[in-house]
């Protein structure tokens, strides 16, 4: 078990290094193609437009300060080396360390992802079980239809529609993660409660697509499991119906869901909630990332990519470990 975890972590580290290199290369592309530019070329243009005489000089100082005058590989190694030490470089746009800008947003991203995950499972499993146990009933048909629509409903469009309802009908200006008075307040119990009050809306929206898929899979798996002899045997022993379903059938039928959790659900949640965050303007790294891409704010964008990847790989690893814990038949080699 331990050696498996170590091997997986080693693999994850290799992946992160590769992703960081390729990501850095992609972010560097605009300045490598002929006629393209980087953040500083954009800034130079805007300074010139303002009629700033010392524009060129200023840009040169920036270039040295951000280390953009060095060759590509030196830049990458310098940035990646500092990254390990916890220094993610300077944001060009804000002229502040990326670390300070990203810090709290990273926590919020994880909080939102975990909340989405919990909402998905809390809704999907009972509904999936109900719909399998009462196959072809009216409730099953309603659930099947809703899950089908949910599966095809992109989170960020749903978020737009909800924003529309909130603005036009409820006359609410913003759907954030905090009330006005807590936005800049230090962490306290009150702020935590306030967060919980606001969190469920974006979590529910980000959860819709995943929930639709999970309900369908849960239903299909449980239907297969319910037909198996061990369920029959459990019934024959005179166990109560709920015991047969929840303790025997669901216990087995849930395993493939955990596999999906790592391979599909988690990546979708990370990227899906990033888009939802942009619509609802939530303080997660999603909006920051898009903004930095538009401005070609390279170190900021690169840091965001790495954190997206780390979240994804950690999610995968946790899902695999959970599977091993839930299903003792699985031996991790």
């Amino acid at each position: 078990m331990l050696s498996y975890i170590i091997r997986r972590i080693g693999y994850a580290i290799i992946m992160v290094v590769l992703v960081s290199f390729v990501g850095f290369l992609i972010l560097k592309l605009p300045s490598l193609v002929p006629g393209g530019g980087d953040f500083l070329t954009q800034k130079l243009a805007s300074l010139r437009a303002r009629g700033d005489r010392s524009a060129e000089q200023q840009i040169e100082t920036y270039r040295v300060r951000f280390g953009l005058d060095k060759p590509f590989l030196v830049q990458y190694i310098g940035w990646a080396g500092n990254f390990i030490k916890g220094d993610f470089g300077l944001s060009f746009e804000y002229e502040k360390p990326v670390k300070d800008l990203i810090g709290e947003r990273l926590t919020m991203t994880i909080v939102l992802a975990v909340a989405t995950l919990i909402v998905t499972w809390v809704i999907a499993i009972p509904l999936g079980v109900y719909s399998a146990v009462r196959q072809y009933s009216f409730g099953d048909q309603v659930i099947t239809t809703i899950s089908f629509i949910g599966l095809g409903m992109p989170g960020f469009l749903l978020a737009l529609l909800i924003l529309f309802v909130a603005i036009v009908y409820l006359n609410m200006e913003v759907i954030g993660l905090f009330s006005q008075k807590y936005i800049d307040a230090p962490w306290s119990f009150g702020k935590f409660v306030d967060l919980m009050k606001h969190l469920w809306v974006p979590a529910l929206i980000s959860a819709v697509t995943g929930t639709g898929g999970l309900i369908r899979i849960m239903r299909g798996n449980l239907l297969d499991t319910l037909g198996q002899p061990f369920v029959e045997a459990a019934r024959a022993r005179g166990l109560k119906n709920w015991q047969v379903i929840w303790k025997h059938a669901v216990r087995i039928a849930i395993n493939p869901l955990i596999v999906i959790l790592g391979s599909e659900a988690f990546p979708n949640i990370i990227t899906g909630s990033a888009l939802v965050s942009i619509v609802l303007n939530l303080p997660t790294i999603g909006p920051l990332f898009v903004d930095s891409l538009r401005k070609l704010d390279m170190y900021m964008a690169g840091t965001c990519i790495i954190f997206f990847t780390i979240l994804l790989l950690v999610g995968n690893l946790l899902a695999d470990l959970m599977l091993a814990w839930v299903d003792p038949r699985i031996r991790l080699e």
Partner: protein
Amino acid sequence: MAKKNQSILPEKGQKKPVSQSYWSLVWWKFKKNKMAIVGGIILIIFYVCMVGIAEFIAPYDLEHASNFTDASPQAIHFIDKQGKFHFQPLTYGLVKKIDEVKRVRTFVEDPNSQQYPISLFVKGDPYKLFGLIPMSLHLFGIKSTDPQATIFIMGTDSLGRDYFSRIIYGGRLSLLIGLIGQFLTIILGSVLGAVSGYYGGATDMIVQRSTEFLAAFPDIPLFMALAAAIPSYFSPIAVYFMLTVILAFVRWGGLARQVRGLILSLREREYALAAKSSGASDYRVMFRHLLPGTMSHIIVIATLSIPGMILAETALSWLGLGLRPPLTSWGVLLQEAATIRSIRYSPWLLWTVPFIIVTVLAFNMLGDGLRDAMDPYSGR
């Protein structure tokens, strides 16, 4: 097995040949799935109306700017102000209105103005159908030449352009990017998957590691980063092409894995060995004998992943990283619609959203039906 086959084959089997081909069985099973048929019909209508004859369906040209900026949608009336029923529906003229509360200027319907009957097949903005045939006929519109006579069933944008027309035109690029992108994905994914499964060894190793790498890269951020790297001086068409290639490049991994798995099992079959021992080249065995066997799977996977492509384009363009005006796609239209200000003052610009959602749902319905139908020998 025999019993099941009987239920699948048509009852009046005397006239038809007793053994049905695989594809006719698939069609036979597909026909019974109402949802899938509905999805298919919606998609045919969308593709014909938006990709094929958008110029004819849309009452106005894409860039037809009118004086009515930010006009709210004009209703189509069958019953006029006096309560009289008209068989031919009509619209009322627009009038400027200053909203005191919101402090904005818009145009709204004026029930006291003249009535303009709506007719079918009206002459309007000239265009070239399929880029060839010069025409000026539009599906519906208003015959009157009065500048007040307008038909904006989904309102207008800030330049006074008819939003319904823009959605129809925008659908062309959005729907096409799904098809073209998916086509590239199929080529890339099936060829690499086939090669990887057939040869194994080092080739397999390289392809598998690349798919794993792509899977480890969160896809929307990867799209965004790649799209941001498209130089801004590229012509709109080049941007469109690059975006399609990017979408295909990021998404081929999943398909390649599936095809590889299928090829791995197919290559051990007798017919593959027979082809090989009768001297067929590797190329021929792979692409003439093995790949057609995976076709049904490829079609299903492709159908189910087209909506993902359309949504990716929409998301990218909406964020300002994909297509840019003057190109108009659903994502570009969302760019204008998806701000707090515009939701508050011109919420009709969100009409794009239902179009996107219906397309995505229709593809899912069709793909789901295909998945069941492609396995016609199963009982379900």
